[in-house]
């Protein structure tokens, strides 16, 4: 009965699926889906290396400090960093006094309430504060950015395919749309004349829909003067700020790698010992009847006697 019912249910599903297959197949042959500009012109993240990549990855503290400087001087005008607190900068090698100074001199103040009047007001940041947001709320942020919302950057390298590699590619990926060709040599505006970047957006083939609302934030070499004397080319700045954003997304990354190796080493030792114990115990079990436990001759004899008593043969 189950088989008969099952047979018909199976036929039903298979039938409808084949029907779907035929209908879709005919449909997609008759009206093949049009190629889209995103498919043809969107680029995957560039291949760059960060010190934090790979199982032995650690932060390059100097690079991350430079990246912080770029965030401070450029990105913080539009982007918040709401999951990171000032005191965490100590992890990057700043000392207590430096961190206090950074918080105290931060351009954006922290919202608070005037203790005398109860009116909303602002105060200087303390090291226990999170980085303050440049805008009071989403509406204000959109109003200032052509109706686009600059996302919070704390988790940006985790929330985008490609992580820091993507951020780096995006920052260095602004192009002139006029005459832009992809690797196959197709010219964007010839193939898709109607995808011309609208006013207020900027063409960037690394962005999912090719047109991003963020104006190129890193535009010229020397835009930032690095404290450590590194030459601030656009490429260098993009790399450094991306490295910083890996840190903001996962300040515990180094602990994770370190704990990983310790755990692996421990487990490897334990597993080798467990394997040896297992082989040792089983050395004879496969080839001959073990002489331990219930298979022990004495035990079996006793069992046989009991069986004989109860009148069971064998």
């Amino acid at each position, binding site marked *: 009965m189950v088989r008969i019912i099952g047979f018909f249910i199976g036929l039903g599903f298979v039938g409808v*699926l084949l029907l779907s297959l035929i209908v879709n197949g005919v449909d*997609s042959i008759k009206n093949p889906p049009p190629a889209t500009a995103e498919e043809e012109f969107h680029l995957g993240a560039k291949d760059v290396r960060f010190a934090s990549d790979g199982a032995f990855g650690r932060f390059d503290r100097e690079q991350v400090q430079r990246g912080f400087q770029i965030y401070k001087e450029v990105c913080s005008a539009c982007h918040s960093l709401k999951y990171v607190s000032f005191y965490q900068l100590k992890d990057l090698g700043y000392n207590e006094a430096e961190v206090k100074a950074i918080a105290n001199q931060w351009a954006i103040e922290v919202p608070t309430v005037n203790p005398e009047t109860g009116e909303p007001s602002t105060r200087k940041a303390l090291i226990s504060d999170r980085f303050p947001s440049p805008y009071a709320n989403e509406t204000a942020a959109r109003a200032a950015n052509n109706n686009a919302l600059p996302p919070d950057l704390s988790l940006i390298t985790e929330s985008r395919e490609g992580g820091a590699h993507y951020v780096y590619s995006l920052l260095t990926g602004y192009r002139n749309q006029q005459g832009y060709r992809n690797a196959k040599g197709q010219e964007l505006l010839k193939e898709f004349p109607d995808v011309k970047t609208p006013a207020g957006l900027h063409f960037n083939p690394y962005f999912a829909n090719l047109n991003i609302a963020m104006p190129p934030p890193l535009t010229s070499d020397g835009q930032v003067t690095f404290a450590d004397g590194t030459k601030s080319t656009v490429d260098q700045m993009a790399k450094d700020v991306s490295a910083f954003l890996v840190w903001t997304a996962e300040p515990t990354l180094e602990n994770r790698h370190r704990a990983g190796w310790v755990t692996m080493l421990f487990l490897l030792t334990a597993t080798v010992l467990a394997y040896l114990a297992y082989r040792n115990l089983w050395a004879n079990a496969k080839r001959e009847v073990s002489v331990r436990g219930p298979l022990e001759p004495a035990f079996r004899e006793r069992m046989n006697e009991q069986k004989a008593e109860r009148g069971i043969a064998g």
Partner: protein
Amino acid sequence: MSFAWAKPYEPTSPFMKWVDERLPVPRLVYGAIGGGYPVPRNLNYFWNFGVLAGLALMIQIITGIVLAMHYYSYAGGAFDSVERIMRDVPAGWVLRYVHQNGASFFFAIIYIHIFRGLFYGSYKAPREMVWMLGVTIYLLMMATAFMGYVLPWGQMSYWGAQVITGFFSAIPVVGEPLRIFLLGGYAPDQAALTRFFSLHYLLPFIIAAVTILKIWALHIPGSSNPTGVDVKDEKDTLPFHPFYTAKDGFGIGVALLIFSIFIFFLPYSLGHPDNYIEANPLVTPAHIVPEWYFWPFYAILRSFTVDFILPAKLWGVLAMFSAVLVLFFLTWLDRSPVRSSSYRPVYKIFFWVLVADIIVLGYVGQAHITPLNVALGQVASAYYFLHFLIILPLVSKFERPLPLPNSISESVLHGEKQESAPFGLATTGSTTAAPAAAE
């Protein structure tokens, strides 16, 4: 418990004797996973996965209880509380990564365990109940994993909840009211999040309870084995402890090593980046995909694209649920008395085709919708049902199995030289037969 020669519990210390006489828990444990449980001596490494599944459940329960101490099921703060766990709670990131990747670890183990069962006919008499309890656990796991994925309240959490609860609205008439009732609103929101959290906390304990029933049911016939031949006498078995505890110890070591690679070096590899964006009902992600362990089912769901008598969406939902429910009926669909595929030359081929088919479905489940992927999904989904509902019953009817070994001990100790009848067809006394044809 299961065999006449199972060693009875003999307390070694007066204390244990005292306890055992008043509350025979030591006796229970000894008979369940101690020296008192005789196990076929020829189990291969695929039999490690039952214990591993138990381990994965324990890991999830323990890390989950601690995570729940730091998590708030408040729609405006759930995402932040997860970030707090990652950043501010001491070792919170370990707990979170273990629990998050632990779900994948659990499913990977369960899938191997299920395919082991399919290959070696573990669903056949006398273990039908064991198998069905297992499928029940699998269903409960799916519900638990789905609700757990909603808790961080990221974009995929939210839109995943939207899509999955949307299945209910495919049901005619009552569907939409039912969906609203289950969600506590028109879309996932505070009400849904709180009840998902509550149920996500509850279900693992139900899984644990069903697991106990399952082990209980298993210990009546005892474990199956790679030959599928019944245990005949004492020579065929070894006591669980110390033989299989030692083997499981090694298996646990290897499994934890692999698990650790994911936790410590690839913690994001199985997740979706969109889930690090806080839920936003106004922004639909470009590409909504479930976690990898649901991909094959998602592919089946999406493969139904025409309204034929029923709306396409309803077909998809029915097919997706049937794809799991069919597992309950395997015992009756596969009538071959031979358990192990090692002796089923035709079924064995179809088994591997099925494995390939499910991998294709998994690929389609996460792929972008293109005409080719859709067609691939439709063919693979059709084959899935063809396999279970049509091929399996027919093959089991017409296939000629290879000769089975006479007994487990013979197959282990002397090579597979002699035949034996499978369960249910056993004639008393061993027949002296020709050497096995295939080796």
